């Protein structure tokens, strides 16, 4: 089956390291280990951000979870903390992710389904009830309404008497990849990014321990991008946030150390390891040379990884355990700081407790049985890995040059560049699969008849009904004058291009809902219907 010119995503071209049956010193001519690699923990951090890597500190096993009402999730948080967890990870439901309240028309059937429903500050109080925010680190996976959720979190901390400069955690807050891939945007690109910069500015001033943005390649890859595209788009997005924060008047060394990254770990084992290594080298050079960051902390790319959900198959789902294990191993060999392993049943439904446990055990086996964590970057110096790292880096730089030539990430979004490129790559992959060039065990080959007998998680409609009635109650009881005044201030601050964080905190305290704050900002920023689709 032919592939369109320009699509050229077939990975096995003869020039690539992957196209050769072996790679030797002649393929690395002119290679200088001192500048390309250095030692772990030193510029350009190809071999890792710490000198001893996992020998002193294992990666964080951060399993993303969330379901039902704030009370349900709070109970789960307390259970996890009681069993030694120090980091909480919060998944929100789809309406919340889209900045809509639980009683919104489009929220029907979605409340509490794939995460916790948070519509008001009251929900947030319940979510973290009895948990000292001064002692835990909290990751919150949310984007378009990220600033609002951060305002809620600040309000909870204030009520607990925890100073803001002690708050530790991560807000995903990466709106650019929503335009490229995940589609959870609300406002047009420019004001959306302005909100991100507002949070960066606010946190830099008040919450220095908070990771402001988790610049994410994961969703870009899952939507169909190649490894090089994932790498390039993610780094380009990180550059865009950096430039805009500098334009806002922030010192690069004040905010850069609090940017973190999030990558997908797919099936092509060595390519993924090369991608993670290349990402660190690229970021170190870009921060030092392009943005003139002076502190080593600004040069280090710290990352979270997740195994590739898109590689899981519904057919013969037990096979997914093996896929996840190899991907997790690649993440560890690539030097990740944090890892989520997918559950074998995630292509069928939300994971059952049993499946989620196997996923966690997979990481624990790598950590405690394989001895792999004993040495930093064990593959460093392999002809093949170094060649792959160089190649993917070169491809990514070429893509970043293209984006620069379009005027940067925002103009490229407006031209539909990211979505089109990702869609083309996704189609090219589908063609390789349909053409027999790319095999999927249990799907294209080694197919079995019959269905799986996997137990699946079911979620009740009960949460939605309770959540909607609670929301009605809050709306009926709140101080109307205070509520209106807070939304008016929010509208004015947005209109005058001020940082909206203080206004959001005030609105949160006045019991304004997520949906109301989003709608108020929509009046000023407009709503985005999406860029060109193809």
């Amino acid at each position: 089956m032919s592939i369109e010119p320009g699509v050229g995503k077939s990975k096995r071209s003869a020039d690539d390291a992957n196209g050769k049956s072996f790679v030797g010193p002649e393929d690395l001519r002119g290679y200088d280990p001192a500048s390309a690699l250095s030692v772990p923990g030193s510029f350009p951090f190809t071999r890792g951000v710490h000198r001893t890597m996992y020998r002193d500190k294992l990666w964080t096993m951060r399993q993303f979870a969330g379901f039902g009402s704030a009370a349900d999730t709070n109970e789960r948080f307390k259970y996890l903390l009681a069993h030694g967890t120090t980091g909480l990870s919060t998944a929100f439901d789809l309406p919340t992710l889209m900045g809509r309240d639980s009683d919104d028309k489009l929220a029907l059937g979605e409340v509490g389904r794939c995460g916790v429903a948070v519509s008001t500050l009251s929900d947030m109080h319940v979510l973290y009830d009895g948990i000292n925010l001064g002692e835990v680190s909290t990751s919150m996976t949310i984007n378009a309404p990220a600033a609002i959720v951060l305002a809620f979190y600040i309000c909870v901390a204030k009520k607990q008497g925890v100073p803001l400069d002690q708050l530790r955690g991560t807000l995903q807050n990466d709106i650019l990849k929503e335009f490229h891939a995940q589609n959870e945007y609300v406002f047009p690109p420019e004001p959306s990014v302005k909100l991100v910069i507002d949070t960066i500015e606010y946190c830099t001033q008040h919450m220095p321990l908070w990771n402001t943005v988790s610049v994410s390649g994961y969703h870009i890859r899952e939507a169909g991008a190649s490894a090089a595209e994932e790498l390039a788009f993610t780094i380009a997005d990180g550059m865009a946030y950096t430039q805009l924060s500098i334009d806002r008047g922030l010192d690069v060394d004040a905010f850069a150390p609090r940017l973190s990254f999030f990558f997908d770990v797919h099936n092509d084992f060595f390519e993924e390891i090369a991608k993670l290594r290349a990402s660190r080298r690229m970021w170190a050079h870009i921060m030092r040379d392009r943005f003139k960051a002076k502190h080593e902390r600004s040069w280090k790319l710290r990352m979270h990884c997740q195994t590739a959900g898109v590689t899981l198959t519904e057919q013969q789902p037990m096979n997914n355990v093996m896929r996840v294990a190899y991907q997790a191993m690649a993440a560890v060999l690539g030097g990740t700081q944090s890892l989520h392993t997918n559950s074998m049943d995630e292509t069928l439904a939300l994971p059952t407790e049993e499946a989620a446990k196997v996923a966690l055990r997979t990481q624990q086996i790598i950590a405690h049985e394989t001895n792999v964590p004993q040495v930093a970057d064990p593959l460093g110096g392999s002809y093949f890995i170094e060649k792959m790292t160089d190649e993917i880096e070169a491809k990514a730089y070429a893509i970043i040059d293209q984006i620069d030539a379009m005027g940067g990430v925002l103009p490229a979004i407006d031209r539909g560049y990211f979505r089109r490129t990702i869609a083309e790559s996704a189609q090219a992959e589908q063609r390789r699969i349909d053409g027999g060039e790319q095999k999927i065990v249990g799907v294209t080959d080694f197919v079995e008849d019959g269905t799986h007998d996997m137990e699946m998680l079911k979620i009740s409609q009960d949460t939605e009904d309770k959540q909607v009635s609670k929301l009605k109650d809050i709306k009926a009881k709140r101080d109307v004058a205070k509520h209106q005044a807070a939304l008016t201030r929010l509208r004015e601050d947005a209109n005058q291009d001020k940082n909206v964080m203080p206004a959001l905190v005030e609105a949160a305290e006045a019991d304004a809902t997520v949906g109301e704050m989003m709608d108020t900002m929509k009046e000023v920023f407009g709503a985005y219907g999406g860029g060109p689709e193809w």
Partner: protein
Amino acid sequence: MVSLAPEPIEMTKPTKNNQPPRILLAKIGLDGHDRGVKVLARSFRDAGIEVIYTGLWQTCEATMYAALQEDVDVVGVSLLSAAHLTVMPELLRLRKQLDIEHIPIILGGIVPKEDHAALADMGVAAVFNPGSSVDDIVGKVKQLASMHEPVKLEDVVDGYAKRKQNALAKLITSVQRGESVEGFEPPAGDAVVIGVTGAPGVGKSSFIGKLGEELVSRGKRVAVLAIDPSSPITGGALLGDRLRMMSASPEREFFVRSLASGGAAGGLADVCPDVLKLLTGFGFDYILVETVGAGQGDVGIRELASHTLLVLMPDSGDAVQFSKAGIMEIATCFVLNKCDLSGADATQSQLIGAVGDARPIFKTSTLKTEGIDKVADFIVTLS
């Protein structure tokens, strides 16, 4: 792997005009996972199918109204939110209510095997799970399309006279397919036909969507003909204009039909006059014809339209291009869209210079819904 085993595939019955099969692809609800639907959209195009994609965040109601107006051969729904047992019954209920039960609905996404029988029983024509091969899906769509019967005039003439949109939609399909509509002559109407043209990316579709809404809110009846290019190789097409015009309340007098430029043997020019006649006779006040982009395949449309709106955007340099192409001369008025972007004022000054006469120049922003009312004020003075 296909969950419902595909039946032997019949080739599409060739219509007189070689009209390719038409499918409407929809994502319903808040879920944004659109990788699958986009891969399919492209694959359908490459397999010679015309694809109307309605974009993200659609309601069941908007989707089925779109199916009605487009009178597609198949509706394909993508659902990865596990809402299939809520959404599919609602779609099927609407299909019955709207009297378009001739249009089969297929489903793709994460659907547990145990639900397949229930879906088949309620009337879903096929279910495709992750891992299904594109060839199988394409085969099923072509087979379903081949079962789309020619329109019987006696079934639709009455409905058309009573201003039923599904009758109008079916008649347009007849014209597209080159079926005989002999003995049927729509009444003469007095619609104002307005061509809307401009370079790709200036936001023509969004602008037409907003303008249409504005005119409808003033009590006008509005139809849109949205024309996108066909693939010269496969004859398939991605018809993406409609997704910018999905109306919040689809029951109103706002009719949108997507056409592929190469859908008919003789090109658009053969089909368009008849389609416009049908729309005019139906009683629309305004018919907005969105063309592929200035100078590309929109010849003929301009002869059919009594007015032309030229849409531009800031800093595009389009004015220069259009001056060369002579399109500036024929425009009735100019719409400088995307005025939320910087450079709008400078472009406006250049444009005033380039126009050189009293023809109006409107500044609009479809993102912020600004300036649309002024354009509508002008439109209603046209005849």
